[in-house]
């Protein structure tokens, strides 16, 4: 007889009676979990689907084929052969001339202007650059693919509905006729949008690119890494291996943990007042952005670094100390190499967060409209997430797809960084 005074058969019956309920509650719990995961996946899928469908078309830009005559009469009527004169010449006239060849029937100032506006306002600059590269083009006639205006681009990509009332769309009826004619003649084609990856920001969507923002982000992350990683690792080592256990260190720890949760815009304000107002560092510079992001990333690196260091088994420390290694030797020969994958994972996650950070950069002037691609961390620049913010704010229809495309580029970099973190973790994960 058992302690409860039941026979084994009775006990079994009691257990069996409750079994169904227990099992069903287990299944129910699993179902909740799966439901939660599915909802998350659904949102993620929707997010990716919209971003990709919106952004994919931005990687192609509609171009117009024109036969351009580099007319000396227009460019250099006095035959000076002076580059300064060539530079200042009116290349728009060349485009007008070639358009008139295709559409000889178009007359009237207003119509001619509408016709000329179908080619990007950046096209004359391309012609000028071509001539500068190769002066022998002077006097020749070339078949050139020049970027179309953003509205033509949007219409050709089907993003402007031709059935909408004329007053409610930017592409006018006569332009639609011309576009159709160009398309019939095979003079319109979507080509890979090289400009998007090779130029800085612009007011014209077809001339706007993300190279400036990419370089700005790159410089910023470089500064962040160079400052935050050594400092963060050093702080983590000190706190984990050398710091005495007392109230001051406890206070320090609490504050570091709190810093990791401080809203990022506060760091922007700090950067504005310390780096720009007090230290007089240049405004809008990736250097300052990097410094601010380094401050923001430091607590993340310290916290991740400490847990990585703590994960190194104490037996390894004892082994080294027992052999007569000094404390510093123990740390640098044994603890640090073993903690390195964890440290690097923490750093990369921190960097990825810094790459996506926008708010603090607004405070230090990196939100300015900057056309020039920065050459050094001291040049004014913007960053990828800020560029996304700026384009999302622009009224032109073509910036919508460019915003999405910039998001794709940013997500790509984030994915690469997180992938790198996962790879490092698996590659160097050690067993002991």
């Amino acid at each position, binding site marked *: 007889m058992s302690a409860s005074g039941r026979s084994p058969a009775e006990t079994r019956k009691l257990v069996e009676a409750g079994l169904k309920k227990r099992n069903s509650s287990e299944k129910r719990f699993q179902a909740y979990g799966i439901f939660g995961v599915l909802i998350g996946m659904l949102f993620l899928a929707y997010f990716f689907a919209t971003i990709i469908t919106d952004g994919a078309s931005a990687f192609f830009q509609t171009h117009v084929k024109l036969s351009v005559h580099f007319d000396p009469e227009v460019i250099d009527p006095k035959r000076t052969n002076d580059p300064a004169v060539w530079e200042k010449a009116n290349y728009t006239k060349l485009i007008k001339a070639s358009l008139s060849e295709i559409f000889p029937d178009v007359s009237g100032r207003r119509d001619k202007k509408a016709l000329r506006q179908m080619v990007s306002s950046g096209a004359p600059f391309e012609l000028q650059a071509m001539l500068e590269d190769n002066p022998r083009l002077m006097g020749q006639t070339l078949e050139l693919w020049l970027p179309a205006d953003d509205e033509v681009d949007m219409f050709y990509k089907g993003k402007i509905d031709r059935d909408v009332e004329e007053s409610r769309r930017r592409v006018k009826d006569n332009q639609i006729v011309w576009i159709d004619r160009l398309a019939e003649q095979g003079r319109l084609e979507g080509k890979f949008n090289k400009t998007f990856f090779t130029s800085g920001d612009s007011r014209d969507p077809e001339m706007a690119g993300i190279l400036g923002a990419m370089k700005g982000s790159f410089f910023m992350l470089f500064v962040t890494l160079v400052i935050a990683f050594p400092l963060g690792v050093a702080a983590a080592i000190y706190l984990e291996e050398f710091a*005495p*256990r007392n109230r001051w260190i406890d206070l320090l720890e609490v504050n570091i943990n709190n810093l990791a949760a401080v809203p990022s815009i506060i760091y922007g304000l700090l950067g504005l007042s310390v780096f720009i107002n007090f230290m007089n560092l240049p405004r809008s510079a990736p250097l300052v952005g990097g410094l601010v992001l380094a401050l923001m990333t430091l607590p993340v690196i310290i916290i991740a670094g400490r847990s990585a260091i703590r994960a190194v*088994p104490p*037996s*390894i*420390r*004892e*082994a*080294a*100390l*027992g*052999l*007569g*290694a*000094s404390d510093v*030797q123990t740390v640098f*020969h*044994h603890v640090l190499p*073993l903690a390195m994958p964890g440290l690097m994972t923490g750093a990369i996650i921190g960097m990825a967060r810094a790459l996506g950070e926008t708010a603090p950069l607004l405070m230090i002037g990196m939100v300015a409209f900057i056309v020039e691609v920065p050459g050094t961390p001291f040049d004014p620049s913007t960053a990828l997430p800020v560029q996304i913010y700026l384009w999302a704010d622009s009224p032109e229809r073509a910036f919508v797809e460019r915003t999405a495309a910039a998001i794709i580029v940013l997500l790509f970099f984030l994915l690469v960084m997180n992938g790198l973190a996962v790879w490092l973790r698996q590659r160097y994960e*050690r*067993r*002991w």
Partner: protein
Amino acid sequence: MATPALRAALVGVETVREHREDNQASQISDLGNDVSKEKEKRMKVQERDEQRQQTVGEPVVDGDIALSADDVNVHYGDNHALRHITMNFRRNEIVALIGPSGCGKSTFLRCLNRMNDTIEVARVTGEILLEGQDVYSKEMDPVLLRARVGMVFQKPNPFPKSIYENVAYGPRIHGLARNKAELDDIVYASLEKAGLINEVKDRMEDSGTSLSGGQQQRLCIARTIAVNPEVILMDEPCSALDPIATAKIEDLMYELQENFTIAIVTHSMQQAARVSQRTAYFHLGDLVEVDDTNKIFTNPGHRLTEDYVTGRFG
């Protein structure tokens, strides 16, 4: 007899910390009685100290003395973990330290090469002399001390590096080899002395952690003797090993005895009987008895020792 709290405190630092917190909490809860309680406590400690028995047997021997401890006390915070330990070690002698869990034998071992320094709450008093030099004096650098007094730990803890690097590490940090050839010599000789060379000579670049448990422990011994210490401390070196690996390590200890003084903590009384010349029995922080191993196991001088070696408790 000690309280269960004290017994728990002896097990490890973590427990010591908890215990301290408990103490603090209770002190805060009855601040009124604080003074009287403190007094009572101090009296209890004194009482216990007076109660302690002189170590039975022959704790201090004559001869060529490598290491001697004189009235060594260890406190973990408020806990008097090791009390008035006086004994010495002859050169090229194996001394076994036995006793039930938490009796302080590992604590004593870790005093001998100052591994207790890494524990912040630990406080060591008394005198430990290594070749006549005070181990705890200001002039003694723990780095040099640990090069002279090597240690093998309970759990094999090779570095996650190659077998070669494991053994070469000690000589390298201490600058014992002038060039690669000398370092090679040291590494191969140490592995040979540790009886591991035939098993690893074709795989020197494999990770030390890829070896079996027994091989790992012999690698750790090779690593220790590569520094050529005077004394080797072994903290239950076979507790994680199977009987065959244990036998190998015991054989090894016989051979090592020619060159080194060895102090070994063990839970296996058979092991103590097999390998050691002298045995010290610890009980709850006291050194109860030290004598020739034969005598300890056949004719112990103290009732506690007898109870322990005959398996009546422990």
